[in-house]
Structure formats: structure tokens, C-alpha cells
């Protein structure tokens, strides 16, 4: 179990399972792994509310785009210019908020 799991008696995966996603075929987030290796803050790992970014032992960052809330926090906190390229997913795809 990572330190991110099991807050509030609720597993993070169970938390994310309450949100609805119609996953696009193409990733709307692109991360430049070379730029990440020199990054000392890795703020994307902390702030992403869907916890889509994971720090690798190599110093790089592993990410997935499938359960993205499309908030934009990751690219805004990214301190390595251009390491995260972020756009809205294809029309009709991505998160579907039912009780926002």
C-alpha cells in the first residue's frame, strides 16, 4: 500500500471508481520524461487529484491519462518548461461529472 491509499477508510481506487470516464483513444497529456528526470519538485505527483503521476526510482515520472478530471493542475505546477503538454481530450471523451 502506498501512502496515498486508504485515507478515510477508502481505498484510492474505490474513490476513483465513483467517477465516470469515457476514455479517449489518444492521450491528452504528454510528458517529456527527460525533462522530468532533472525536476526536483515533482509537484504534479502531489497535486493531481486523480493521482495520475507516479515518481519512478530512475527520477522520471510515469503517468496515465485515463482517469483525468481535466482540471489542468499538473501542467500549471510543472516547473520544467514544456515537460507536460496538456490539452482537452477529444470532444465527447474524458470525465463525465454527474453530480458536480
Amino acid at each position: 500500500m502506498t501512502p496515498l491509499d486508504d485515507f478515510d477508510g477508502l481505498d484510492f481506487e474505490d474513490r476513483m471508481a465513483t467517477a465516470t470516464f469515457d476514455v479517449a483513444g489518444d492521450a491528452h497529456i504528454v510528458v517529456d520524461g527527460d525533462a522530468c528526470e532533472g525536476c526536483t519538485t515533482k509537484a504534479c505527483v502531489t497535486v493531481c487529484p486523480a493521482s495520475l503521476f507516479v515518481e519512478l526510482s530512475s527520477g522520471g515520472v510515469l503517468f496515465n491519462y485515463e482517469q483525468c478530471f481535466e482540471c489542468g493542475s499538473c501542467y500549471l505546477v510543472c516547473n520544467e518548461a514544456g515537460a507536460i503538454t496538456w490539452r482537452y481530450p477529444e470532444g465527447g471523451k474524458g470525465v463525465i461529472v454527474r453530480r458536480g
Partner: protein
Amino acid sequence: MTTDFEVVVVGAGPAGSIAALQLARAGIATCLLERGPFPGSKNVYGGVIYPRVLDGLLPAWRDEAPIQRVVTRRSTMLLTETQSVAVDVRVAAWGAPPYNGVTAYRSEFDQWLADQAVQAGATLVTSTTATGLRQEAGRVVGVSTDRPDGDLSCSLVVACDGVNSFLAREAGLYARFSRHHMTLGVKEVLALDRRELESRFNLTGREGCDIEMLGATGEITGGGFLYTNLDTLAVGCVLKLDDLAASARRPEEVLAALKAHPSIAPLVAGTELVEYAAHLIPEGGYDAMPTLGKPGIVVAGDAASMTLAAGVWLEGVNYAMAAGSTAAAAAVLAQAEPGGLAGTHRHYTRLLGASFVQQDHKRLRRAPRVVFSDFVQHVQPGLVCDVAESFFTVANPEAKPGLVRTIRRAMRARGISTRAALRSAIATVRVFR
């Protein structure tokens, strides 16, 4: 030049749908673009829609709009880890028309608003993302979309594309678009039996409750909220993105701590999480706003940073709707002039400046600085709680101290200088006078 539509409105949220409604009513050929599969499907908010703007635009809203509850109880709480002080305002009159504030699911409310625009004659196109602007000689002449052959030409783009504001940035309207003005909101919707909910929050019928919290987010600048729907609660926190990035804490961890607070835990006990969501909020106020338009484009709603996060006031949907309506009114004026719709921005800037949207934001332009100041965020809640605790603790046989002495003692215990307290008090009075 022929165009596909006279106006393309990007984003079917409160700003975009009201703009499209009013444009269509004026007989202007309007396309309302929405990237989600339905309007509202990308939208999350912090709890209350203040509907005065709707009275004039859609007078039947009280009967027709999909509302959850009518807010009759508005509570503002200051919290430390173990204490809380609340100002609990209950106004029975708010429960009767015209209603002061209502709660709703944005998926339902925003869809209803977009439906009104469609009924008035606007063309709603969903599942279509605007990927960029088409510009000619510094003038916006259309948008590109991710549909095959989906580029749309028009005389005016109304950019209501939300907090990330890609279109206004591409148009060069943001001198400095900055994460420093952004907060991240995370929210849980929790199912609770309707009767239990009403007895827990002291509500009857469709009455609703909205609680705002300060001091509940630890070292991270921000706040918390809790509001009621018919048979769900929504609880969340709003966290300054810079602080969250600098902290080692995850957003859901901060929210879990807030929910575990002794004053909050009983309110959320026995509930079941039915949806977790997150969204950014532009909280920079007036000084973070972009230029509101240029030839061929105007910006409204979150895309123009039109949310007010001024401590006791937390509003956005109302400003978005008013700005959308103003954009349409400006378009009607521009259309009658030789330059046509492309000149909408000049009227929009002038009309919006005279409206409550800009007047509120301008008057409260320093509010974010005060509300997010270290004193208000991290010192004041503890001081107020300590003073209240001392004041109401019966320490017999010790005689009761006076209020001034209680405050002095509490300040000394927390190492707060009179100067710092006075400085914050003066700044607060200056902003809100």
C-alpha cells in the same frame, strides 16, 4: 464574407448558455459548442447558485430549473484542529420566492440552461472541442474544432471555455496567466437518507444549508465547504495550488482531515461516497482578469477569472450568467454599427464595467490578498476559537475575566502581536467597508 454562424459561443456552461440564449433571442445565428457529451458534464462547483440574474432572463426558472435545495441556512466556520466557531445565519424568508441561493447538480442545471438557448434558436453542438482560434490580421474570425472539417467561421467568438482559458490566452488577452491565482477544489458527493439529512442539518422541505470553513486546511491556504442537495451532501476543500504543490500532502488527504474534524465528522457520518470530482477555480479576482476582448472575441465566466472568492462571499455562476448576458447585449449593439459583430468587445468592456460583475470585483480587488493572507488563514481562526473557548469556559472558583483581558491573554498565548492583529483588522475593514 459568408460565415457558418454569426456567433460561435465556446462552452455551454452558465456564461455560454446565457450568451447563446440572449443572442438567439436577438435573432443572431449562434452556435453553442460544448466539448462534453452534454452541457455540465465537465463542471464542478462549490455549492450555491445565486439566481437574481435569472429573474429577468428566465422568469420561469423557479418552476422549471432542476434545483436541489433552497438555501435558508448559511454558516461560516473558523476551525482549529479541535475547536470551531460558527456564525450560523438562518433566514426563513430566503426559503420563499424569489430565493436567495439554490443548490443544484451542474450536470442538470447547465443542461437546462443550454436547453433554454436551444429552444430560443441556438444550435448546440456537443462532444466537440474547440482546439484553437482562426485569426486574420489580429482579428478573430472563427474557431477550429476536433471534428473532421469542423472549422467554423463567424464574426464573433464568445469564449466561455472555462478556467484553463485556452482561447483567451491564444488571443493574447491574458498578459500573465498564472497558476498563482488558481485553487484546486476537490469535492465528494455523499449519499444520505433525505430524512436523516434534514434532521441532521435542521431543515424542512426543500430548505438547504451551506457551510463555508476557514482554518480547516492546515498549512495550505484555502478553505472548506459543505452543502446539501436533496439526498446527498457535498463536502470539499479549495486549496491554493502553489501551497499544495509545496506541501507533501495530497488533496484527498486534506479533505479527509477536514471530514474527520470533530465539528464536521458528525455531519458526514454514515454517508456513502457516490462521486469524487475535482476542478480548478480562478481566485485572483479583478487583478487576475484578462483584457475582456479584442476584435472578433469576448471572454466571459471562469475563462475571464470572474469568480469572487472574498471570504464571506463565494460566487461565480451568477457572475458568469451576467457576463454571458452582457456579451449578448454588447453584440446586439455592435451589430447595428458599421463594424458589425467584430466590434462587440468595446461595448462588452463598457457594459460589463458598469455592471455588478466588474463593480463587485473592482471594489473587492484586494480581498484575495486579505483572505489568503497568513494572518486570516493561519492565525485568526485559532485566535477566535481560543477567545471563544476562554469566554465560555466556566473556570470557577476563578472570577470571570473581561473580554479585553481574554483577547489579550489569547494573543499572548499564541504569540500574536497587537500590531499584526491591528494590521489585519485594518486591511479587512479597508477591503470590505
